[in-house]
């Protein structure tokens, strides 16, 4: 329970500091000692901020909330990797035992034209909400649903829909993509609803509206490098992008 034990490390941090989206940013260096290997990465940043406040330096702003890998609020490019080095892990679930004494860690915000920096490591991801508002739903008003067991859905289909539905909307896919593409994010929702019978009536209009909004928000194109899948903390497969592309093609033929 004691933090000052012999396993504790000294870590050298290089952190992106930017006062607002109107000002230029730059990297700042900080050294943090007494970092316990059992700490989470964000607890390490909490400790940095307490130290900075004692030194009368403004603490580093970063987004975080649930700290259990599900809300999608945390972000961070850590040594060039979205959510850090560990596969299938959000930044909040990354632990300092992944690092060793004396390591240097470079921390930057998500970098994408569609995600402007708000402050330091915080970016604006509202473009994702706008894509969802364009079609990421089934148009069913409260109260008008039939009995839940009225339509049987094969277990394998429900499971595959769930694989896609696990997306936490963090934006790592966009940050990891050299084109800043949001294809994996959009495909996860399109594919989930396209697999389920409930999504069928609006399948064509949904994919068209969401793709159009994605383009309008300034996300780049997909060039099939699958960096998004490697960075995705929920392991969402690029197969969903293939399904979305089929749906998109189908929707344009139906026109």
């Amino acid at each position, binding site marked *: *329970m*004691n*933090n000052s034990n012999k396993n504790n490390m000294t870590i050298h941090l290089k952190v992106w500091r930017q006062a*607002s989206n109107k000002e230029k940013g730059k990297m700042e260096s900080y050294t943090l000692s007494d970092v*316990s290997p*059992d*700490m*989470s990465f*964000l*607890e390490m940043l*909490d*400790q940095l*901020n*307490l130290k900075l*406040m004692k030194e009368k330096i403004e*603490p580093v*702003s970063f987004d975080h*909330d*649930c*700290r*259990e890998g*599900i*809300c*999608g*609020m945390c972000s961070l490019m850590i040594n060039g990797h979205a959510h850090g080095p560990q596969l299938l*892990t959000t930044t909040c*679930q990354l*632990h300092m035992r992944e690092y060793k004494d004396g390591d240097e860690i470079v921390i930057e915000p998500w970098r994408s034209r569609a995600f402007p920096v*708000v402050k330091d490591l915080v970016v604006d*991801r*509202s473009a*994702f*909400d706008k894509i*969802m*508002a*364009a*079609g*990421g*739903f*089934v*148009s*069913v*008003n*409260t*109260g*008008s*649903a*039939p009995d*839940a*067991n009225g339509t049987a859905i*094969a*277990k394998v289909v*429900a499971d595959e829909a*769930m694989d896609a*539905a*696990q997306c*936490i*909307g963090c934006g790592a896919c966009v940050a990891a993509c050299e084109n800043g593409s949001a294809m994996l994010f959009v495909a996860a929702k399109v594919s*989930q*609803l396209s697999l389920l019978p409930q999504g069928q009536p609006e399948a064509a209009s949904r994919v068209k509206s969401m793709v159009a909004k994605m383009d309008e928000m300034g996300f780049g194109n997909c060039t099939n490098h699958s960096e998004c899948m490697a960075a995705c903390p929920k392991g969402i497969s690029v197969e969903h992008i293939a399904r979305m592309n089929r749906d998109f093609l189908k929707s344009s033929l139906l026109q």
Partner: protein
Amino acid sequence: MSSHKLDSKVPSGSIDQKWNQHKFQSKMINPSNKRKYKIIVVGTGLAGSSAAASLAQLGYEVSAFCIQDSPRRAHSIAAQGGINAAKNYQNDGDSVQRLFYDTIKGGDFRAREANVYRLAQVSTSIIDQCVAQGVPFAREYGGTLSNRSFGGAQVSRTFYARGQTGQQLLLGAYSALMRMVGLGKVKLYPRREMTELVLVDGHAKGAVFKNLITGEYESHAADAVILATGGYGNVYYLSTNAMACNTSANWAAYKKGAFFGNPCYTQIHPTCIPVHGENQAKLTLMSESLRNDGRVWVPKKVGDTRPPDQIPAEERDYYLERIYPSFGNLAPRDISSRQAKNMCDEGRGVGSSGLAVYLDFKDAIQRDGKSVVEGKYGNLFDMYQRITAENPYDVPMRIFPAVHYTMGGLWVDYNLMSTIPGLHVLGEANFSDHGANRLGASALMQGLADGYFVIPYTIGNYLAASASKKIETNHEAFKEATEASLIRENKFLNIKGSKGAMEYHKDLGKIMWDSVGMSRSEAGLKKAISDIQKLRHEFHQNVNVPGSAKGFNPELIRAFRVSDFLELGEVMARDALERNESCGGHFRDEFQTEDGEAKRDDENFCHVAAWEFQGVDKAPNRHQEKLEFENVKLSTRSYK
């Protein structure tokens, strides 16, 4: 003190007819007139998103506010295990009556019967609605929905989506909300903190919000205000709540006259990953569903430090199975947590801190095979391993109770309206349905029941009956509220003390956990009250809030929230002190049976305690709403 101010407005008639009758007798608003009414919804979790979407579908003009960058991030998203509904798809004897009974009993007879019955009634429609939205619940090979049993229930009525049920339900409600945003029927305001509730002639007519990006204050006028702002578990600093969960919107309403119901009823969840060190900022829950297959045990011998695999079966105490043979490892949360604490207090806790018990899957793996266990709990096992660096397939998990949910909240009547006319409170933010202990998989049910199926009916009744006087944001009351917010933040920024708000929060959490946690005593509570007062005083002299009022400043917002928790903590301790009985999650050392179980006092405490603000450093007034049990017989809750 009984109070004329607390009229529960429970309709007359038999319990199964109350809601239907009430809906029929409620005043209606013509569809084309609904667009003339503006409603503010604060919070976009299950209750807030479902309410905002449903009210906009009816035609109301809705504005939705949240503290995160997107409504999809509200903490409902973290719920793992499932959602209850009385569908009886498993043919195992479930019914509305049984869900009602289990919830009343689970809440240790401290919830309002009529609300709970309505909750059980609408539970079935929730599942229908979610499936229609495309929520991918777990299914059987035949294509029908799957169910599992959950703590405190003897039927399988819990619907689930792997270990991410809250996420899937919230994304369903969020999709409904975003659809209405896209149609222009809901205006969405993310990254906004509500700082003041605005009252005009005693009615809630709007609120003032701080824009967390610009730092500016924004006024919003409305005909009614809905708070769906969640629980206050973070008063303990360490909890399973997200970091941003707070009581501030509720507290602003409390300070404007909304009564706070049963603040001392908190739920300590039995299966969380134990604390690792002083720098820990948050605790992680391991879903209660694990207790379906995991067996909880500690060594029989005090101070037994052998590794678990070297302790033979006959030297292990499977204490839940021993003490509660009929429910075993599925005993309700309050009981399981308290027994874990008892084992550790006896010196039989495990791990380096001695503050943990084992949750062992060895027998389940031997019985069903590793792949079956992996199929059910794989993601939870992975999460455990990521945090602790131990493999739960090989060594038993170590678990310990942690603060998880708060049953208390703003007092509401049957219409979900607080003591401030026009102010409605939904989900965990209100006090109404779970009594002194919430059953597993009931929080999601309540949040969605309130938002989809209750408030759309009851708010119309208020709007139709109240004067249709339109208030604009140029009204004096908005200026005053904005001015109050500005004065408050300048005060914080000018203290320039030496200790961060997070450190004060941690100090408060220690007091709360030690004295207002799993067991409470008169002496401990009295000391907690004076310790919190001292800490609060010091905070206002010495807190260090860096940065400025303009722009993005998370430390300033943290100071707001910690300041409110420092007031709430005292009211919780006062509530616990006045309630001279043990019930559910509220356990007073002085009031226990011979075998250490909670001892209720139905003669003197079969009531809701609702607290009325009198000033920060003044004791609040305690009011009572008597609870009537006409359909369930008051009895000693037993899981043996």
